[in-house]
């Protein structure tokens, strides 16, 4: 920490770091200076003048350079003739600030009166009403009545959709500019701006679709009035009517902390439902932001398609059954067969993984992680450790991002890496195509998809400027994904990257390490507990005596796996929906969604975080760990299955990385900065204070033996000159089962398509909108082409989870599809 400065605010003497603004210093001392335009996560602009205070500074004798003293020995303080804005004025030594004087009170009253001259005062129908800084500050400092004529008020449009997600009420806007600054400086999607001037000044959007940003929802939190509100929550409830519950975002490995707001709803037959999802502060994970997928993507939990009854195959058909029947049937099926394979996806909680692992190992089976990406064991040994926070990265540090598009795969990591680069960390982005993160990169490493391993290897040996920048860095954080990589190649990549850390001497440092950009929230948890991906999954499934699938849909993703599953002896499926896999099962168990149960997830940074039950469970569903324990019970394997916390205790006893952890420990919190969620509301906006746990990072596993040589992985060369390398890429809004029920995002969801470079398209003789048939052996698909200059030549990009059965990259033959004549 830098130099400390001592100053007096309202008679209270405090010491704060040099450079701190008066508002922040006052807040630290427990004194509220009201603000509208200032936000502690953004640069101050001093636009609204709400924060005016009296500031006095010691008078310095010019000849001696010493403060002039009063008769009583205290320094002489000179107050300026005018008030100063506390949000733009940094503290200085000996400063005296008065926030409670008559002059200040009058200034505040004046500002509020002016703001209200054109405010519609429709608090009764405003979604912000009840948690509105303007309301609060008017009550606290406002004049109570206006001297202006009502007729003089500006009447502006009250219902302006800025795209389908966010509504703007122009009358309510107080022109503080927080939203515009957030979009241009924090999210770097400058798609909204001020237009016109004077009293006609207003917010507009100029993107197509409107307000095209993955972070747009955050502006509704920080808007100090109800000018920006979300379409999802529109008129959903009043803030005071809802019950907040702490939760974690289920959509990506960042693990953003959420608050679910719950209320009874008549339309849902009097059930308690989630009305909105808000960010919960965790400065180690998501600060006070979340992306729109996390905010609007919870509707799958209330989908009418959810399974509500166990199903058992009788005479070749899945029939509804009681829990007792289904459990007994599942146990029977397992008892008769050997060679059980558990296939689990990254949506499971740590507790679910743990119980499932216990059963399959007790039955000498295999625990397979449903993933096409490897490296979780390296993250265990070379991940971040202790209290390391990405916010600590700055000058002298480096961040390497390989084979992933963070903006699409883990938006909050994108944001935090961008911020690290802005603080001075050297950012190196390596990918086969341009991604949004490259704007902040000091070095960009571009490769053809087939050369990725060579490129990374050259970082190990090379003298290239990138390699040197990495070697020089004090701390090095490496994010790696799986774009364009097979499972084996991603294993090799992780090994090389771990080697890089060891070789540079950064592996031991807490703020250095590997972070895997997994496709799911808890894939890392699966690794911790012992699940491993299988390079030959189809064979494993086809030869398994019994397959126990949880939170995965192999049959829906890949017809080859579907065929393999048909061959498996006996199939148990635990899922929320009747997936393609579930349709092929012998027993199907309906599970609870994360909103209905307790559990923990391990984020890609290895932070274990708790989520809490927010709504009552759907009748007749059970949490995964309980189902597993109950089946195990029938098999005579004793497992804890009554409460998630007890399962977690078992887990903490069994796994060294979890040693000493418990639900109580995960629920611990410390005071964070900025202070949010207090009565004032104007600091972080309507973000929720974290009172239910910041989570704990798992202990780094000892590196163990010398790093093995990586497997000599050959990325299969092009089988023919005109072959196309088909690469599945992640889009934030995909057509996955956990997102499709969020109808609000429908328009923005990725569709099945083939993205081609202009040169490739020309070669094939196709244009955007035309169709191309791609095939490899028996595998064939016909896809609509989009010509995109960002796609590398000889490659075709296909968005993941859009219905195209492509789990791993594949060389294909491509040819223009001849259109069937329309009948």
């Amino acid at each position, binding site marked *: 920490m830098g130099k400390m400065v001592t100053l007096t605010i309202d008679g209270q003497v405090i010491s704060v770091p040099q450079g701190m603004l008066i508002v922040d210093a006052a807040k630290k001392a427990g004194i509220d200076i009201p603000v509208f335009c200032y936000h502690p996560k953004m640069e101050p602009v001093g636009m609204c003048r709400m924060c005016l205070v009296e500031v006095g500074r010691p008078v310095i004798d010019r000849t001696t350079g010493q403060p002039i003293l009063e008769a009583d020995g205290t320094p002489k303080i000179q107050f300026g003739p005018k008030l100063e804005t506390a949000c733009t004025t940094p503290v200085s030594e000996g400063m005296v600030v008065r926030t409670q004087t008559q002059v200040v009170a009058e200034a505040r009253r004046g500002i509020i009166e002016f703001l209200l001259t054109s405010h519609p005062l*429709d608090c*009764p*129908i405003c979604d912000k*009403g009840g948690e509105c800084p303007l309301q609060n500050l008017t009550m606290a400092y406002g004049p109570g009545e206006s001297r202006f004529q*009502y007729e003089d008020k500006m009447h502006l449009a*009250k*219902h302006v959709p800025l795209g389908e997600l966010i509504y703007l009420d122009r009358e309510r806007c107080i022109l503080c500019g927080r939203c515009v600054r957030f979009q241009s400086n924090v999210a770097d999607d400058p798609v909204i701006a001020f237009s016109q001037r004077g009293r006609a000044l207003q917010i507009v959007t100029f993107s197509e679709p409107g307000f095209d940003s993955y972070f747009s929802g955050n502006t509704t939190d920080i808007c100090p009035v109800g000018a920006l509100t979300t379409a999802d929550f*529109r*008129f*959903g*409830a*009043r803030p*005071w*009517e809802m019950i907040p519950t702490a939760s974690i975002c289920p959509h990506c490995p960042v693990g953003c902390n959420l608050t679910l707001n719950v209320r*009874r*709803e*008549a*339309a849902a037959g009097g059930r308690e439902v989630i009305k909105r999802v808000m960010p919960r502060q965790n400065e180690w994970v998501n600060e006070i932001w979340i992306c729109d997928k996390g905010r609007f993507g919870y509707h799958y939990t209330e989908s009418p398609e959810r399974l509500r009854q166990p199903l058992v195959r009788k005479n070749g058909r899945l029939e509804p059954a009681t829990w007792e029947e289904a459990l007994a049937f599942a146990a029977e099926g397992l008892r008769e067969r050997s060679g059980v394979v558990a296939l689990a996806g990254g949506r499971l909680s740590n507790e679910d993984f743990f119980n499932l692992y216990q059963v399959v190992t007790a039955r000498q089976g295999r625990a397979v992680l449903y993933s096409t990406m490897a490296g979780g064991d390296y993250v265990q040994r070379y991940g971040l450790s202790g209290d390391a926070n990405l916010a600590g990265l700055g000058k002298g540090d480096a961040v390497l991002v390989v084979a992933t598009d963070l903006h699409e795969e883990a938006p909050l990591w994108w944001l935090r890496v961008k911020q690290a680069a802005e603080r001075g960390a050297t950012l190196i982005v390596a990918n086969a195509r341009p991604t949004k993160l490259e704007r902040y990169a000091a070095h960009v490493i571009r490769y053809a998809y087939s050369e990725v391993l060579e490129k990374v290897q050259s970082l190990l040996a090379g003298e290239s400027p990138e390699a040197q920048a990495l070697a020089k860095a004090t701390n090095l954080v490496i994010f790696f994904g799986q774009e364009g990589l097979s499972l084996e190649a991603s294993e090799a990549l992780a090994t090389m990257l771990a080697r890089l850390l060891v070789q540079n001497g950064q592996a031991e440092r807490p703020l250095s390490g590997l972070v895997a950009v997994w496709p799911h929230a808890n894939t890392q948890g699966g690794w911790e507990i012992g699940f491993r991906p299988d390079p030959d999954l189809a064979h494993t499934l086809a030869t398994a005596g019994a397959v126990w699938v949880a939170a995965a849909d192999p049959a829906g993703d890949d017809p080859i796996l579907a065929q393999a599953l048909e061959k498996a002896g006996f199939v148990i499926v635990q899922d929320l929906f009747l997936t393609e896999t579930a349709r092929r099962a012998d027993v199907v168990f309906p599970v609870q969604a994360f909103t209905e149960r307790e559990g923990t997830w391990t984020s890609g940074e290895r932070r274990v975080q708790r989520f809490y039950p927010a709504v009552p469970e759907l009748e007749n569903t059970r949490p995964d760990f309980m189902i597993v324990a109950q089946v195990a019970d029938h098999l005579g394997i004793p497992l804890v299955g009554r409460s998630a916390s007890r399962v977690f205790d078992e887990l903490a006893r069994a796994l060294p990385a979890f040693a000493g952890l418990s639900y109580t420990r995960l629920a611990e919190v410390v005071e964070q900065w900025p202070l949010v969620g207090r009565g004032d509301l104007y600091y972080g906006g309507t973000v929720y204070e974290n009172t239910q746990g910041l989570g704990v990072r798992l202990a780094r596993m000892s590196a163990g033996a010398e790093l093995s040589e990586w497997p000599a992985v050959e990325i299969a060369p092009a089988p023919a000159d005109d072959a196309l390398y088909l690469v599945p890429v992640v889009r934030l809004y995909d057509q996955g089962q956990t997102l499709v029920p969020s109808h609000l995002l429908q328009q923005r969801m990725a569709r099945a398509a083939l993205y081609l470079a202009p040169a490739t398209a020309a070669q094939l003789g196709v244009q955007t909108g035309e169709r191309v048939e791609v095939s490899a052996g028996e595998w064939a698909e016909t896809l609509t082409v989009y010509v995109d200059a960002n796609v590398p030549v000889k490659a075709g990009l296909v968005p993941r989870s859009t219905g195209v059965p492509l789990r791993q990259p594949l060389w294909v033959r491509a040819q223009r599809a001849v259109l069937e004549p329309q009948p």
Partner: protein
Amino acid sequence: MLKGLLETLRSMTEKPVTIQYPEVKRPVRARFRGRHILRRYENGLERCIGCALCAAACPSDAIFVEAAENTDDERYSPGERYARVYEINMLRCIFCGFCEDACPTEAIVLTDNYELTFTDRHHSIYTKEMLLEPVPEGGKPTPQKVEPGVYTRAIPIMQDPTD
């Protein structure tokens, strides 16, 4: 004993105080607070904008409001918001009138009707349909289909906020 008998004789000649309810109803005091109604404007639109301030003010948590958005094709109230669900549990209500005080549009008012009977607890929940007053003469029932752009303001403009 004589005194008692005299008293009896005297009261026999007095006018009876008993009222033959329900044939005869005693007028209530001017400020009597009874069953609520939800009022309408003359054109039939509902005054209630679903703000739930009445529910917030209610000391016995008797009111449940759920709001939704108006469209010009299906308009219930002026402005953007109306009450999709409005319920008062009359068994909970203590007839304090706070809801009436809280209402920004003077939609919920307590009348002098004290005849609240039900044979089942569930019937004590008065729904919006029961509470809404009849459509006034010349007005139309809700939802109405209206010209776009007419009802942009939820709360009628008051010339002088003090009246």
